[in-house]
C-alpha cells in the first residue's frame, strides 16, 4: 500500500484550543455527569457511587469458589489475540502460575498494586470493598496499548518491533488499576485539566506501586513510567519521566516525548481528550518535587496526601490543576501542621510547576 506519509508521531500541530477549553467548562461537565449516570444505568449499577462504599457488581459464578475466599481476588483472563472481552479465565487467586509470562506478570502486578493500597492506605481493592481485580491479557494482534475499560485492565502484547508486552512494566499495571480507583472516588472527568489529573493520578500511584515493590526511597527511584516497554530499537528509556517530563524518548520513528513540566507550556489540543497524556507531566512533576523534597518513601507522606485528596469528599470531578494544588496543600497542612516541612514542600512543588493554589489558605 502506498500512503502519503507525513512523518509519524510528529508533535501535534496545536489545534484550536476551544475544544479543550469547553471540555472543562461547566456545561460540558454537566453533560458528562448526565452521561455518566446513563452509563451506570446501562451497566446495571447504581447511578451514584458513594465514596468508599461498594458499588461493585455481584460476582459472576466463575469468580466465586476460591479456596478460603482469599484476598485479593485476582482474575486473569486471556483474549487469545482477539478483541472480545473478557476472554478465557486462566488464573484465579491462589492458583499456580500458568507458565504464560504475560498472564503471570499481570497476576503479580495486581498483587503488588493491591498491596500498596491495602498496606499503605488501608484501602481494600479498587472500590474500597474488595472488588475482584480483573485483567485481560493478549488483547488484539500486535496491540501496542493497555487501557481500563471500566471493569478491568486490558493489555496488548505490543508489536514486538517497537513495543514489548504491556505487562512488562509494573507501573503500567498500577497505572491501569489506578484508573479504577479514580473512577470509584474523585471520578475525574477524562478531558482537559481534570483528565490530565486523572492521568497523573495513574502515573503517581503506578510509580508508587513499583517504588514500593522495589523498596526504593524517593531519591532512589527512577520516576519513569513504562520503563522496559520499548524494544532495543527505540531511542528512549520509557513513556514518561515524572522527574523530567519531555525527556523520556527521542526517536526518529516514534517521535519525541511531548510532555511539559510547567504550566507555561500547557498544551491546548483537541486530540487525546484535550492532551490528557501530555499535560499530566505538569502535576506528575509536582508530585516528584514534593516527594523528593519531603524525602523518604514517596508512598508514605506525599502518597498519603495525594491519596487523601483523590479519595476525599472535597474534590469534584471537574477539578482543575490549581484546585488540586490547593487541596493537597490544605491536606498536608491538616495532616502535618501549618508550616510543616510537608506542607511547605507541597506548596513549593506546585509553585515550581507554575501553579498557585486556587483556594484561600487558612
Amino acid at each position, binding site marked *: *500500500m*502506498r*500512503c*502519503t*506519509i*507525513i512523518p*509519524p*508521531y*510528529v*508533535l*501535534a500541530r496545536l489545534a484550536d484550543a476551544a475544544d479543550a477549553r469547553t471540555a472543562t467548562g461547566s456545561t460540558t461537565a454537566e453533560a458528562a455527569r448526565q*452521561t*455518566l449516570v*446513563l*452509563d451506570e444505568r*446501562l451497566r446495571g449499577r447504581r447511578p451514584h457511587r458513594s465514596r468508599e462504599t461498594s458499588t461493585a457488581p455481584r460476582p459472576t459464578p466463575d469468580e466465586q469458589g476460591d479456596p478460603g475466599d482469599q484476598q485479593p481476588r485476582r482474575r486473569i483472563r486471556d483474549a487469545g489475540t482477539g*478483541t472480545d472481552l473478557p476472554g478465557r479465565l486462566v488464573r484465579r487467586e491462589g492458583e499456580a502460575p500458568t507458565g504464560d509470562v504475560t498472564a503471570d506478570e499481570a497476576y503479580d502486578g495486581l498483587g503488588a498494586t493491591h498491596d500498596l493500597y491495602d498496606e499503605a492506605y488501608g484501602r481494600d481493592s479498587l472500590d474500597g470493598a474488595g472488588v475482584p481485580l480483573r485483567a485481560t491479557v493478549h488483547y488484539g494482534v*500486535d*496491540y*501496542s*496499548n*493497555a*487501557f*481500563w*475499560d*471500566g471493569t478491568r485492565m486490558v493489555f496488548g502484547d505490543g*508489536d514486538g*518491533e*517497537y*513495543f514489548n508486552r*504491556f505487562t512488562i512494566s509494573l507501573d*503500567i499495571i498500577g*497505572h*491501569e488499576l489506578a*484508573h479504577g480507583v479514580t*473512577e470509584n472516588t474523585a471520578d475525574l472527568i*477524562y*478531558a482537559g485539566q481534570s*483528565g490530565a489529573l*486523572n*492521568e497523573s493520578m*495513574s502515573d503517581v500511584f503506578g510509580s508508587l506501586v513499583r517504588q514500593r515493590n522495589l523498596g526504593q526511597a524517593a531519591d532512589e527511584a527512577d520516576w519513569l513510567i*513504562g520503563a522496559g*516497554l520499548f524494544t532495543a530499537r527505540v531511542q528512549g528509556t520509557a*513513556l*514518561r519521566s515524572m522527574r523530567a517530563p519531555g525527556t523520556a524518548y527521542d526517536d526518529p*520513528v*516514534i*517521535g519525541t516525548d*511531548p*510532555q511539559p513540566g510547567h504550566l507555561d507550556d500547557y498544551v491546548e489540543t*483537541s*486530540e*487525546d*481528550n484535550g492532551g*490528557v*497524556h*501530555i499535560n499530566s507531566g505538569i502535576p506528575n512533576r509536582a508530585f516528584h518535587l514534593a516527594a523528593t523534597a519531603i524525602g523518604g518513601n514517596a508512598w508514605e507522606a506525599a502518597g498519603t496526601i495525594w491519596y487523601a485528596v483523590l479519595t476525599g469528599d472535597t474534590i469534584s470531578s471537574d477539578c482543575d490543576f490549581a484546585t488540586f494544588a490547593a487541596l493537597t496543600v490544605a491536606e498536608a497542612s491538616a495532616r502535618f501542621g501549618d508550616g510543616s516541612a510537608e506542607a511547605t514542600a507541597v506548596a513549593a512543588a506546585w509553585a515550581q510547576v507554575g501553579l498557585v493554589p486556587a483556594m484561600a489558605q487558612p
Partner: protein
Amino acid sequence: MSLDRLLVSVTRSGGVTGMRVQRTVDLDAVDPDEAAAWRRLLADDAVRRPATPARAVPDGYVYQLACAADDLDVTVAEQQLPAEHRTLLARAVRPG
C-alpha cells in the same frame, strides 16, 4: 490530481503511551480490497455520526478522521468502532 481525490487523514492519539500518529491514505493508491474497506468505513454511520461516548475509556485510543472530498471530519473512540474499521485504522498508523 482531481480536487475530489479521496485522501483520508487518520490521526490517532491517546492510549497509555500518549503518542500521536498521523497518516494520510490515498484511496487511489491502495489496492482495490483495501480501498473498498476504506469506502465502507467512510460510508458507515458509526464513523460519520458516532454516538457520544457514555464515558471515555481511560487510555483508549482516539481517532480523528478527515476526508475533505467526502465532507468528513470526526473524532471517534476506538471502542466505538466495529472490528473491521479498528483493524484498518491500526494498520494505517503502524509505525515504520
